[in-house]
């Protein structure tokens, strides 16, 4: 697994892809930081994370779009499937490489609270829990992207279908507020990854939300493994 992780992580930074992702991520993130913190004169990063959550949907598929589809297109997936590692290890290794690249970007954003600490008090609890929440949320999006990438040979299709799935979940919040039936409304909100994020911004580490995000990640990685298992049989 570490071999796959290393190979994939390096691949991000040997091609332009990793740098393009990081540049876009840090640029957007910098603008959001400037608008929601510096110009708004607050050290609370709630506004920043609220906007970054929307942007993450559009940026993170850049990381995942070629994760499996590239191998499929180049037929190197045959090599991976016959390599002396389990499919699970291969999938998790690749997933972690994408997460690792995302975390490089997140590490750079730690400069924001650091910079703000020179101008006022930074709410450590809220900032920490928001970071935890945002990383879990993004981990979920990356796992959805990874799954989509395993279904297709085309990077574009992988990226766009990821947008599709995630945007669909965005509507869950809206739908739930229009549904009269309390039970259905509750179930819709339960599925929504956006609704779960709120607690984190308040400085509360909600075990339910953490378990939920980890479940999302596990389910989509499991489905990805199933896609490759199926390939073995067909």
């Amino acid at each position: 697994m570490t071999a796959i992780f290393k190979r994939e992580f390096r691949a991000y930074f040997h091609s332009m892809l990793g740098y393009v992702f990081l540049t876009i991520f840090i640029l957007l993130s910098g603008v959001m930081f400037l608008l929601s913190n510096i110009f708004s004169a607050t050290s609370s990063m709630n506004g920043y994370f609220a906007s970054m959550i929307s942007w993450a949907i559009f940026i993170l598929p850049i990381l995942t779009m070629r994760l499996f589809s590239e191998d499929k297109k180049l037929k190197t997936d045959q090599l991976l499937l016959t390599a002396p590692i389990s499919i699970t290890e291969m999938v998790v290794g690749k997933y972690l490489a994408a997460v690792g690249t995302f975390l490089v970007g997140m590490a750079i954003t730690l400069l924001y609270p650091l910079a703000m600490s020179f101008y006022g008090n930074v709410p450590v609890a809220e900032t920490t829990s928001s970071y935890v929440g945002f990383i879990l949320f993004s981990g979920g999006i990356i796992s959805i992207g990874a799954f989509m990438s395993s279904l297709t040979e085309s990077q574009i299709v992988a990226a766009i279908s990821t947008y599709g799935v995630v945007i669909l979940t965005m509507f869950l919040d809206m739908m739930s507020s229009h549904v009269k039936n309390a039970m259905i409304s509750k179930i819709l909100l339960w599925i929504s990854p956006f609704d779960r994020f709120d607690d984190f911004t308040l400085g509360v580490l909600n075990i339910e939300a953490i378990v939920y995000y980890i479940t999302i990640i596990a389910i989509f990685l499991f489905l990805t493994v199933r896609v490759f298992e199926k390939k073995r049989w067909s």
Partner: protein
Amino acid sequence: MNKRKYLINSSVIVVGVLAIAVLFNILVSVFVAKFPVKIDLTSSQIYGISDKTYEFLKNFNTPVTIYILAGEAEQDTNVRTILDKYAQANSNIKIQNVDPNENPTFGKKYVKSGDSLYKNSIIIDAGDRFKVYKSSDLYNVDAQTNTATSIKVEQKITAGLKYVASDTDFTVYFIKGHGEMELDGAKAKLEAENFIVKDLNIVTDDIPSDAQMIIVASPTSDYTASDLAKLDKFFSNAGKAQFLFEYSSLRLTNLYSYIKEWGIEVNDNIAVEPNRSNILLLGNSSLILPVFESSDITDALIKDQRIVGYYPYSKTLNLLFESNSGIEVKKLLSTSSDAYVKTDIENLKSVEKSEGDKTGSFAVAAVSTKQGDSPKDDSIIFVSGTTLLLDVDADTLTNYGFANYDLYMNVVNFLQGSKDDYSIQAKSLIGDTITVSTLDAIILGAVFVIVIPLCVLIFGIVVWARRRHL
């Protein structure tokens, strides 16, 4: 056949795993509902009360009932959580819910006739004295978005308890008669803090004996000998006063020389701050962010990094001595050392620096204490080069991130001689304010939006270009 069998198997596995995942989440939810394991990283901060209040509650022995004007189900749980801390700390304090739907006349005796109490109001009742807070008094609300930005339950309840337990009132007079400015914001703030606030025409009336503090806000005509005699009488009885000027209050020769006896000389000028880090973000160069000098009044603000004073068009003050025959002068706020002053105010066309403008660090606010026989008998004056924007209401200024009212209430508490200062800060629901000068904002913007992304991109292009030729 084999393939079909596989498909069925595979579907069963997928459905099974999904079911287990959902079930696991439901189990966690059920578990969390029974044993709350939300790790509240902030609970001790937002919903707790400070050591200052605990210290105050230790010696609090007035039986008090705090009424919440709402049923258990409708009450504001944030407020209730904090009130419970008071009741836990001191058994004289009882908390009781009163549902106005069931008991609609309950609130009547706590309001002036004609007024009514709203749901979720808080009443602190000690029998003969009481204090009422509307639900909106307990939060700072952003005027633009109408959302609560911070919670000040502790600030209000502690002040309210202190008020109902005491039997003396502190009376403040706003002086009129010389074209003074109306400081509506300061009046409202002082009333909210349980001061008795009155107006007084110094030309026609004497300063009454119940006056403990007078406020002179930017007079436009000079004081007469008879006015000054009234001031003399007032100060001889441990009087406390605030003299707040504006650049438009000019040539108040008699008043200036009266204040000069206290070691503070008032100048008819405005201070201009060329130092970008001492000017309000996007402001013009008369909107000074003053430098806080260390003192009893300012130290707490410096510690909390609440160091914005928004001090527009300030007059400068010359401090003639630090200590001289029983008079102590203390500088509170000053400009940066790059500031300069413009003097010919009435013909002023531009605040650009021209030759001959005096340059240096100028005091813009100071206090002077004339020592009496005991600290209780001290007479004290606070002199400021502006009215500190006190005509604007406190919430508005605070929401913009200006610490003016924090500074002002510290001054008032200092003049009032309350060493045990209970002006407790509101607890932010949206995070603390940061104060970034224009220059720093531009630098931060350039670094985070241009420099860092560009570095990453250039590094990427270099790596890519190198590898292309491998």
